[in-house]
């Protein structure tokens, strides 16, 4: 390998690890922006009309824009790049014992398109009229016509940014799927693939199969905005509800697109830190398949009261409640895996376990919303907000932190501080519950989403409710402050942390066979695979782990 200068090595690299980290750092920056937005509008809700430190007074127009872009950023520019692209890029070649992705330059292109989309989105906040404020679902006619949304440029740029992001992940997804299908190490059969890779690839396939109609829809909406066509304009014969179908046909599978990788990360971590084989590996896969297939038939539960045929709602209520079964079963598998283990509560494990605990709340509250009768009341209230934050927060924050603490030694060759990690964990998990538990209550009291101020609504303007809103906001600020130890820990450990060995957690999967951090090309000699990935505490063996690449000749090398 010839010497590379800084630009070649870190900016225009085709190395999957560097690209993964590019996604990670972009995702982190976007998460900071999204967190800042959340802080701003939570302050407005807690102390309406006052000047927010670091922003100024929030106008209704800005409020809508903040809410919209908080949602958009957190899903498309934080959860997707970090869960799919960071872990996908970093782990797939390492875990299948390979030197890189099959199309390194396609991979680089996908990141560049993604970066461009992030830049376009950020630019949309600064154009005349401000950023788009029609909610992340962008229902037309509001999103389609500037005379309604008053963000002529913001809305168009937002739409272009989202479409570009889709293209980036299509390119990335093709790479993930092809790599996993074709480039596994010798001896790695279907059921020897670690769960996390299965999940990332299933998620990519789900994404690919669901996003197409929305891309077509985005082009149609773009024409509505810029050329004045009437695809979604009832005055010209179009149908605004059509967009909702296109959007949610993608939007609901999208939840599973980010859920599955998170589930995968958690599977890796709980097996390693409880020294257990994963309970019923195939069941996990089947439930994941079932979830993926079912997720295409549940989309209209977002539209129960949107004016679809009421008979259709019955069908979707049934499918929606059915999808709770595979997800619940997957969670039971994970809990069963803990049985009889030897659990080490490292920072990574704490985050992984808290994912299970918190996601259960998200899953259970989803049943209220999927049951059509109850949804009439809960639809578009804060109950929904709290519900999907209890799913997305564990997915995009808890599982990601779990993954970062776990794979950090592999990424940078050094350990993060466990003490700071635990402070960070409790400082994240407790405030998280304090933010969103009050919101369940407020939602049940009839408080609707995306409302700028509750002062006009006499039923919601009571002092008790306001105290709950303040509690949620204070908890948010506490949580944001507790991210500082993480950021310090992350960057300080990168430079000065305890040097890590190749396999510090005594894990089985192939990435731990490579040096920490892996050089370009990853492995000195490409490994071969002799056994499934979760052979921990096998009876009759001295050590409690049995790496996949270890030759079965008897003598222990680890």
């Amino acid at each position, binding site marked *: 390998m010839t010497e590379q200068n800084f630009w070649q090595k870190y900016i225009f690299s085709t190395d999957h690890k560097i690209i993964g980290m590019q996604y990670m750092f972009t995702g982190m920056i976007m998460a900071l922006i999204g967190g800042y937005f959340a802080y701003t509008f939570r302050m407005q809700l807690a102390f309406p009309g006052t000047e927010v430190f670091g922003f100024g007074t929030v106008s209704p*127009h800005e409020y809508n824009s903040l809410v919209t872009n908080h949602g958009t950023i957190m899903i498309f520019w934080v959860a997707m790049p970090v869960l799919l692209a960071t872990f996908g890029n970093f782990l797939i070649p390492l875990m299948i014992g390979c030197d890189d992705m099959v199309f390194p330059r396609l991979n680089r292109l996908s990141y560049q398109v993604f970066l461009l989309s992030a830049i376009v989105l950020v630019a949309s906040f600064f154009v005349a009229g401000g950023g788009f404020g*029609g*909610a992340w*679902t962008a*229902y037309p*006619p*509001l999103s389609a016509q500037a005379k*309604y949304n*008053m963000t002529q440029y913001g809305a168009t740029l937002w739409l272009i940014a989202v479409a570009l992001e889709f293209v980036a992940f299509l390119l990335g997804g093709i790479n993930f799927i092809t790599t996993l299908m074709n480039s596994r190490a010798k001896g790695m059969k279907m059921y020897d693939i670690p769960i996390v890779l299965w999940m990332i690839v299933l998620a990519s396939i789900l994404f690919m199969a669901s996003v197409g109609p929305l891309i077509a829809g985005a082009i149609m909406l773009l024409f509505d905005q810029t050329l004045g066509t009437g695809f979604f304009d*009832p005055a010209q014969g179009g149908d*605004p509800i059509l967009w909702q179908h296109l959007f949610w046909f993608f939007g609901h599978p999208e939840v599973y697109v980010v859920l599955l990788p998170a589930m995968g990360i958690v599977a890796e971590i709980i097996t390693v830190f*409880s*020294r257990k*084989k994963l*309970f*019923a590996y195939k*069941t996990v896969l089947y439930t994941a398949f079932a979830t993926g297939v079912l997720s295409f038939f549940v989309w209209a539960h977002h539209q129960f*009261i*949107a*004016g679809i045929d*009421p008979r259709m709602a*019955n069908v979707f*209520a*049934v499918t929606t*409640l059915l999808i*709770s*079964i595979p997800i*619940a*079963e997957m*969670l*039971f*598998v994970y*809990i069963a895996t*803990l*049985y*009889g*283990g*030897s*659990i*080490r*509560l490292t920072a990574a494990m704490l985050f992984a376990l808290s994912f299970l605990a918190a996601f*259960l709340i998200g899953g259970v509250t989803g*049943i209220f919303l999927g*049951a*059509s*009768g*109850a949804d*009439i009341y*809960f639809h*578009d*209230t804060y109950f929904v907000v709290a519900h999907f934050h209890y799913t997305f927060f564990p997915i995009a924050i808890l599982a990601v932190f779990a993954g970062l603490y776990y794979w950090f030694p592999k990424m940078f060759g050094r350990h993060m501080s466990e003490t700071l990690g635990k402070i960070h964990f409790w400082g994240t998990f407790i405030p998280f519950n304090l933010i969103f538990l009050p919101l369940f209550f407020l939602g*049940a*009291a009839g408080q*609707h989403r*995306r409302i700028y101020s509750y002062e006009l*609504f*006499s*039923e919601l303007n009571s002092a008790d409710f306001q105290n709950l809103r303040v509690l949620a906001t204070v908890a948010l600020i506490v949580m944001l402050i507790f991210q500082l130890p993480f950021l310090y820990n992350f960057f300080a450990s990168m430079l000065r942390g305890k040097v890590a060995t190749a396999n510090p957690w005594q894990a089985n999967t192939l990435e731990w066979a490579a040096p920490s951090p892996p050089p370009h090309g990853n492995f000195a000699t490409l490994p071969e695979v002799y056994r499934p990935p979760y052979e*921990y*505490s096998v009876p009759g063996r001295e050590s409690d782990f049995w790496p996949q690449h270890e030759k079965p000749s008897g003598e222990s090398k680890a």
Partner: protein
Amino acid sequence: MDLIIEQASSFAADIDMVILLIAVLAGFWFFLAEAVLFYFIFKFRQRKGVKAQYITGTRKEEKKWLHWPHNLIIVCDLVIIFFAIKVWYDIKQDLPPAQEVVQVIGRQWSWQFVHPGLDKQLGTADDVATVDELRVKVGVTYHFKLESRDVLHSFSVPVFRLKQDAVPGRVFTGWFTPTKTGTYDIQCAEMCGMGHGLMQGRLVIEDEAAHDEWLRNKAT
């Protein structure tokens, strides 16, 4: 539910019943799962000299720990589906005959209500149109004709447990029967632009005498 927010329509109690049912069934599984999770974390924490067990989860007696919860959840789901759809059917699909009809029109960013006048017929000269104020009689079954003039809105009355999106170019018909007098909030529940958060209406439920009195005042 009725402790947090009043029930002011004939079907509010039905919806609250479904919510309670789900809360009990789902809550049971939730607390069970969390309890088991925390018990395992405590029981199987790392201890010196205790090695983890090797359980594949593929044997029949191990899998039963998945199958039984799995089957029981299906049963719970079916119960929930049954009641959810029943309530849904009563509220959204099976409209009881209307005694009076009101027209509800959503605009950026106000609600306009057209009440039938003293003749109880909509579309006649004595109709009373108001903005941001809906006045209805207690105990009378109303049909509402919901329209929108520009973007999507959602007509939401929390005390009624009622919500329906308004879509430009379409008219949706729904129903409600107020059961107690009072003044309540009407909200917009679908993002409709800058003033969405300020799009507030008032619902006044009054007895027939007071309502007629109001109509007469409006007519003059």
